[in-house]
């Protein structure tokens, strides 16, 4: 049985329409005008225990709204959510016992107190057995490099240090499901990698289900094995990450270093299944579909017009694919 079941989930907000000026302000008080905005438009998905799911989409696609509904912080307008056998918005506190959540840079740690005191409170609140607590603390301290931080007041920590502690706090009580809403925002590369490694390690060991929304697609690339792609409140892809790349990422990027070039190539030649993205005196950037053409065919054509000195090739990454999708190149 799936640990998270979502069926025909819809969320519509009422938004107060602001009216300008002093008169508008009083109008708002007397007879407020609302307009409706549907953030999530009837989505369906099931998540199995132990999955690492990347929940992605542009700003305003409805990611945070979904996460808030899954945690019980928002009530759906219609549709069904069952998390771990519980309807979260009906039995919020019951649901809270088996989940953990990170919302951006907002912290649950107590600002004025040493980090370890917040951890002890979590142990107490979730009734975590002593042995389990000590085992987790030791492990987390090691992976997330918290040794030096535990006795520091939270207010004296840097953002990266604070987020590492926050992540540890979120996983401390062995939650079955963890929602991470932009956990790496504003962090440097090393901290990001550290956190990604931590998530993967814990998932492997404890089969913790993780749902991750992020703007940094490297997070997804590195951590997740499944992608749910949301666009304007609707799911446009749901499935395996590699398959996603295979379906939508059929093209390859190549940069050619050239010399003795005569004029603009894009004006003079036509290439089947290949597009010239950028062109200067010394270099040509191309993008081609490897099912329709090969690099040899392209080189054959191009070398008639100039001397190719070097080639750099790379496969399309998630970011490239998403850019294509948002531009409307692929219809899903």
């Amino acid at each position: 049985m799936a640990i998270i079941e979502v069926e025909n989930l819809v969320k519509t907000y009422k938004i107060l329409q602001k009216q300008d000026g002093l008169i508008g302000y009083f109008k708002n008080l007397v007879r407020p005008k609302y307009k409706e905005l549907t953030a999530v438009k009837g989505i369906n998905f099931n998540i199995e225990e132990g999955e690492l799911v990347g929940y992605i989409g542009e700003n305003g696609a409805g990611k945070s709204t979904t996460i808030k509904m899954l945690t019980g912080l928002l009530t759906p307008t219609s549709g069904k959510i069952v998390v771990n056998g519980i309807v979260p918005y009906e039995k919020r506190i019951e649901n809270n016992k088996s989940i953990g959540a990170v919302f951006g840079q907002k912290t649950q740690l107590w600002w004025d107190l040493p980090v370890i005191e917040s951890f002890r409170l979590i142990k107490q609140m979730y009734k975590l057995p002593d042995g389990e607590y000590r085992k987790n603390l030791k492990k987390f301290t090691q992976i997330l490099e918290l040794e030096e931080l535990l006795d520091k007041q939270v207010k004296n920590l840097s953002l990266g240090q604070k987020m590492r502690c926050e992540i540890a706090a979120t996983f401390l009580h062995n939650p079955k499901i963890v929602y991470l809403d932009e956990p790496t925002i504003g962090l440097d590369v090393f901290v990001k990698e550290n956190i990604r490694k931590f998530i993967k390690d814990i998932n492997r060991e404890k089969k913790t289900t993780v749902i991750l929304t992020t703007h940094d697609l490297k997070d997804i690339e590195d951590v997740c094995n499944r992608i749910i792609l949301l666009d304007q409140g609707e799911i446009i892809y749901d499935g395996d990450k590699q398959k996603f790349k295979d379906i939508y990422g059929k093209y390859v990027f190549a940069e050619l270093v050239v010399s003795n070039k005569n004029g603009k190539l894009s004006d003079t030649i036509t290439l089947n299944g290949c597009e010239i993205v950028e062109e200067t005196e010394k270099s040509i950037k191309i993008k081609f579909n490897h099912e329709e053409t090969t690099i040899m065919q392209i080189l054959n054509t191009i070398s008639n017009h100039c001397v190719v000195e070097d080639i750099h090739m790379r496969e399309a990454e998630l970011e490239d694919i998403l850019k294509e999708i948002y531009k409307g190149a692929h219809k899903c």
Partner: protein
Amino acid sequence: MLRTIFALAKMHLNEHNIYKSNFYLFSFNRLIEVVVYIFVWQAIYYQTGDAGGFTLSQMITYYILVVSINPIVLWGINEDMGHSIRTGRINKELLNPISYFKYYFGMNLGEIAFAVIVGIAVFVVCAIFWGVTLPVSFLNFIIFLVLILLGIPITFFLQMIAGTVGFYSGSIWGIQILRKAVISIFAGVIAPITLFPAWFQALSNYLPFQELIYTPINIWIGEFDMSQIVFVLIKQVIWIVILYIIAKKFFEHAVKKITINGG
């Protein structure tokens, strides 16, 4: 559950302990307040030979007890609640495995522990400076303590009601200034209730506020008609239930509003 609440109380108290200066400043502020009251009533007593129907030493004891108990009644977690709403931290607190009420009740107990420490310090300093009359009997002292304890849930629920207003208005400080002012007037912080007009006294008899400060002090100095004690105790318990229901329903309504239209 109790252990979690105590853990929260301890953490909140620890937050105060980080700032030792808080203790001195807060105690100092209490002292200034009592000094003004004492000098004014001394002046009245020397001029008229009467201090509002009390002896001067009773009146001095009254105000010393007022400023000592006052922090227990007025301080609390309203600022923390306001901060939690303003910064969106509330979202994280709603995801705790214990209810928002219990979470804040625990913190409130920590605040009260701090208030008791300040109160005792102020009491001792004042006792050295002006002298206080001791409770008229041990039994009176016990009843004094019982009423103070019964006041804790009452002031807590009042804070939750005031704090919940912040869910709607976005700002909590205006409403909590109001809360403090109302308690100050009705609890007898400004002056013993007997010095207020008759209609006010009649009204005050049915409200829970005078038992927060005025009645316990009267029991301490032996000016309270003990035949009333059963009425007072029952009244307080009824008010605890009423305020609990109001606070809970109001809070649930507010949370529903948040969960329907976002925080």
